[in-house]
Each structure stands twice: as structure tokens, then as C-alpha cells.
């Protein structure tokens, strides 16, 4: 462990951290609560880089359905302990990519490895590290929840004892002895999460994990994802709920029409698109002098005044300066709200550009 300083990408606050030289270290900025990550520099050889850092490596994967290219030369990697969001509109190729990772669908080209094991050639070894929650969760309806989990535990050669505690973890302890055929969609989804967690996998692949869940179920699943993140489990999360992805993911990839159109941290994607934050201020009194001073600042693109509300569109580095300038001009701020560009805007921008 060594001491490193990091600068928060949102508020510029300096963080001092004890970091590992081999694995990413995560921290939360105490000021703005943005999640920060320290990544150690690349290791010496390609082999050690792949085996120790990248839990999932997808390289140039292509899949045809007859003449239709469902997945087109897709490449990305997910590092150990990372939460990787996989986004795309319906029919973009998200589920096909996931099925290629699990070898449920045979890719026509490319290579996929999990912890260094080729999923085609060494599928059994690769799958030992994977927990999977499919988009369409299905169980054996004639068996109880517990009997279902016992079967999957046996198949993974795990002791059956952990099944009961996993059922409790997902809040199904009262219905563990009920047949799954009597379960609601939400209950099946939660049981699916318990199945994915069997054997504490290193890589969790979650395909639309909150699909069809009620509000309580959504909160429960999000809590579980956070718990896994804290334990250092690598998570590959495919979801169409962008706020969910933005809240938990370290990096995202956006797929559209079978191609990866962007992949990076959400902040970096915002920067790349030059999406600007919007500052909304409620002042006790608005004067022309105040507005002129703000408009003259380098990095301010537009200022709109609606009654006592002032909307300022500006580059991220000038946010603090806007507020300082207004107070210097005698403005008394009753309310302040900074609206960062959301992942929705990033997503729409990238998917529009490729339509």
C-alpha cells in the first residue's frame, strides 16, 4: 500500500488515499460524494496485465443471424472490482453480447475470456467464476425455491447450506418451501439474484436486474449490487435504467446497432461530448450588472433570467467562479442547484449520432 493524492473530477477536492499498487482503489469524495477511483499504472507484461487486472475481456466479437449482424466487432474489458455498465436501446445487441460471453450463443468471430480462460475452449473453468442473472429469469416451477437453489448448488459443487442464507438475503425466507410456479415475477427475479450469488462468484453478469420489480424489489437489488461492489466483486450490468447505471457504475459502454459507440467513465463521456452543467440560482434581487459580469466570464455559454431565477450554462471549471462573481456583485443567493449533464443526455447523444 502506498499513499496517493487524487483530484475529484466533479468538485476538484484533493483526496489522500492509501492505495494498492496492483488493484484499483475506490473512494468517495467527502464534499460532493462522487465516486473516485485510483488505478495503478499498467503492469509489465501483457500476460500479467490480463490475468490480474481484467476479469472479463471481450475482443472483436462478431455475431451474425443469417445476414443480420447482431454484434459487430465488439471489444471491451472489465477490470477486477469494477462495475461496468452496458447500455443500449432495445435490439442493440446487449443480450446477444451477454449470451456470447456465456457461450449460450456461439460468436462467429472474436475471443472472450473470463479471468484469462477462453469461454469457448475452457468454458467450464471460465464459468466457475461467473454468476448470471438472465433478463428472463426461469426456474423449475415444480420445485420449491430451496429445491431449485439446491440443484444449482449441486451443479456448482457447492455445499447446500448456503442456499437458505441466500434465500434470506433476498427476502424470500418465508416462501423458501413454496413452489416457484406460485411466485410472482418480482419474487422470481429475487430468487434469480440468489442463484447468481451462489458460490460468491468473481464476476456477476446482471442482465436488466430490476426488470419487472416493484419499488421495494428495486431498492433491494440495488442494495445488493452495492454490497457486492464493496466486497470487490466485478459486476457487468446491462440495464436500460440509466439513473441506476449512473449511480453505481465506474465505467460504461454504449452499444447501438451491434457496435460499441462509446466506452469510458460517465464523466469522461460528458467531457468528450462537451456537455455542460447548468447552474440554477434563485437570487433575492437580479441586476443587469450581475448578469453582465457572469456573461463576461470565460467558459460561460449562456445566461437566462426568469424572474428571480438565473440559469447559467457553463463549462465545469467555471462553476465556482460564477457563484463568486455573483456574490461579489452583491447577489444574495436564496437557492442554488447545479444540474450535471445526466447519463441520459450522454446516451441520447451517442445513440442519435449513430442512428
Amino acid at each position, binding site marked *: 500500500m502506498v499513499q496517493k493524492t487524487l483530484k475529484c473530477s466533479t468538485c476538484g477536492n484533493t483526496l489522500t488515499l492509501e492505495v494498492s499498487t496492483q488493484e484499483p482503489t475506490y473512494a468517495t469524495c467527502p464534499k460532493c460524494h462522487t465516486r473516485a477511483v485510483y488505478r495503478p499504472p499498467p503492469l509489465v507484461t501483457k500476460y500479467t496485465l490480463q490475468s490480474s487486472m481484467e476479469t472479463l475481456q471481450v475482443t472483436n466479437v462478431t455475431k451474425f443471424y443469417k445476414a443480420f449482424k447482431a454484434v459487430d466487432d465488439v471489444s471491451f474489458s472489465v477490470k477486477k472490482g469494477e462495475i461496468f455498465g452496458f447500455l443500449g436501446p432495445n435490439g442493440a445487441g446487449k443480450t446477444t453480447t451477454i449470451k456470447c460471453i456465456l457461450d449460450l450463443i456461439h460468436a462467429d468471430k472474436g475471443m472472450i475470456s473470463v479471468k484469462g480462460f477462453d469461454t469457448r475452449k475452457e*468454458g467450464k473453468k471460465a464459468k466457475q467464476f461467473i454468476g*448470471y442473472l438472465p433478463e428472463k429469469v426461469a426456474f*423449475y416451477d*415444480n420445485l420449491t425455491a430451496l429445491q431449485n437453489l439446491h440443484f444449482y448448488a*449441486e451443479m456448482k459443487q457447492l455445499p447446500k447450506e448456503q442456499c437458505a442464507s441466500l434465500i434470506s438475503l433476498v427476502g424470500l425466507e418465508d416462501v423458501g418451501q413454496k413452489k416457484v410456479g406460485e411466485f410472482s415475477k418480482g419474487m422470481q427475479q429475487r430468487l434469480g439474484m440468489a442463484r447468481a450469488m451462489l458460490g460468491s462468484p468473481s464476476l456477476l453478469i446482471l442482465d436488466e436486474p430490476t426488470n419487472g420489480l416493484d419499488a421495494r424489489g428495486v431498492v433491494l437489488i440495488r442494495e445488493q449490487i452495492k454490497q457486492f461492489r464493496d466486497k470487490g466483486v466485478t459486476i457487468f450490468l446491462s440495464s436500460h435504467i440509466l439513473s441506476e447505471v449512473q449511480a453505481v457504475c465506474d465505467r460504461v459502454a454504449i452499444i447501438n446497432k451491434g457496435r460499441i459507440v462509446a466506452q469510458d467513465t460517465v464523466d469522461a463521456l460528458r467531457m468528450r461530448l462537451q456537455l455542460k452543467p447548468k447552474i440554477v440560482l434563485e437570487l433575492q434581487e437580479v441586476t443587469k450588472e450581475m448578469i453582465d459580469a457572469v456573461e463576461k466570464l470565460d467558459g460561460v455559454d449562456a445566461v437566462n433570467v426568469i424572474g428571480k431565477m438565473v440559469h447559467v450554462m457553463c463549462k465545469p471549471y467555471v462553476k465556482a467562479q460564477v457563484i463568486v462573481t455573483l456574490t461579489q456583485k452583491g447577489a444574495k443567493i436564496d437557492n442554488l442547484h447545479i444540474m450535471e449533464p445526466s447519463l441520459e443526455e450522454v446516451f441520447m447523444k451517442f445513440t442519435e449520432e449513430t442512428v
Partner: protein
Amino acid sequence: MNPQPVFFIAKKEFMDNFRNKWVIVLTIAFALLAIVFSLFGSIFGSGWQDIGATVGVLTSVVTLIIPIIAIILGYSAIIGEIERGSMNALLSLPTTRFEIVLGKLFGLGSILASAIFIGFGIAGIIIGLNIENPDVAGYIIFIVATILYSWVFLCLALFFSTLFKKRSTAMGGAIFLWILFIMIIPTVIQGLLFAEVGFEAVISGEGAQIPDWYFAGRLVDPGSVYTSLLTLSIADAVDPGNFFQTPYPSYYSAALMTVLLIAWISIFFTLSYWRFSKKDI
């Protein structure tokens, strides 16, 4: 290959069918069938028939119903799980497609094997207690041959389960094959025989000589192979497809018939695995 996933899949298949009473129903049906046929099977004599005569009468019914039961058990084994969505989860586990198909075969095969063994076994004991000098070895051969015969159609149904995208199509295809093997192929071969020997000669049995090609042709039909195996192995057992009980050609042997049944099982199992290994789920 790891035997543990194969065992657990087979165990699950067996327990599922045990829970829904399939095994019990089949066992009772087989036992009753053998007892009734032994007790009332002959119009030439009253009382319990010996093993050969019982097997002879049973064979004509068994060749029809065993394939249907095997097809009902097997046609949805793979496609049913794919349609339901549970195959996704199964294939995400550290197991191979070969182990899954093998587990399905052993699981469903053990249902058929135990129902045949226990059902016909209980009937055999009851028959044996009521007749003199029962042919125990012959009856055991009958049970083993029936199990092999059921597995031929089970593997055929498994293959169709991997071949189609819908369970209903797989069932339709498997039933078509049952009609092909049980009705069309034997009828075509017999039709050719009538054409060559003459219908009158076959019906009257006077001066008719069964040509060698007829026996060679029968080897492509698992039902004929099964009945030939029983006729060759059990004294007094009668092959209903062998008109006038003409002696079999010299190349006909119990060993050849056993090898042919095992070959059918191997071919359909290999085709099932090959098709499943190529399938996108």
C-alpha cells in the same frame, strides 16, 4: 468430462418424473400388461402361459407402446428447457453441453429402465410362481432388450428435442418418426414382400419362400431388430414379422441384434449432442 453434473442432471430428471407419478404409473402398467397377457394371452390354452409364449404376445404390444412412452418422455427434454428459459441458467454453470445431454439421457433412461425392470420383474416373479420350469434367463433377456429398445426411441426423441425451435414441432417430428418406424417402414418392407412373393402365397403360406432381402431390410427397423433378438434368445418366442416362422438367415444372431440396438442408441445420442452443441440458446 465430469461425472458429477451428469449425475445431478440425471437425478433431477428422475426425481421430477418420480414426483409426478410417471414412474409409478408406468411400473404398474407394465406389470399388469405382462400378468394379463400371461393369464389370458393364449386362445389355445387356459391358465398361465410359459415365458416364451408370454413374451411372444407381449412383444407385439411392447413394440407399439414403448416407443410412444419414450417419445413422450424425451421430446421436450432439451427444447422444453430452452422454451421455459431455464437452459440459460443451466448453461451458465460450469458444465458442458455434452454433460447436459448425457445427464438427460441417463435420467430419462433410468425412468424407463426402472419402470420396465420393476414392472415386468414383478410380473415375471408372479408368472414364474405359477408355471413349471420358468425360463428365467430368457425373461431377463426380454427385460434388458426392452430397456435397450426404449432407449433407442428415447435418443430419437432427444435428437428431435435438439433439432427444432418449438416443443410442439419436436413432438410432431418425433411422432412422425414413430409412425415411420412402427408403421411405414415395416409396411413398405412387407408390401415389397407381397409384390415379390405374391399376396395369395403369403396369406395361404403355401409354397412361399421368404427372400433374404426381406430379412436384411428388417434390420433398419428397430422394432424388427428387437423382436428378432427376443426370438433368437428365448425358446418359443414368436416373431410376428416373420411369416411362416421361416428360419432366419445365418447372419442373424442375438449379438448382431444387440449391437444394432446399441448402434441406434449411439447414433441418435451423437446426433443429439452434435445438434445441441451447435445450437444458439
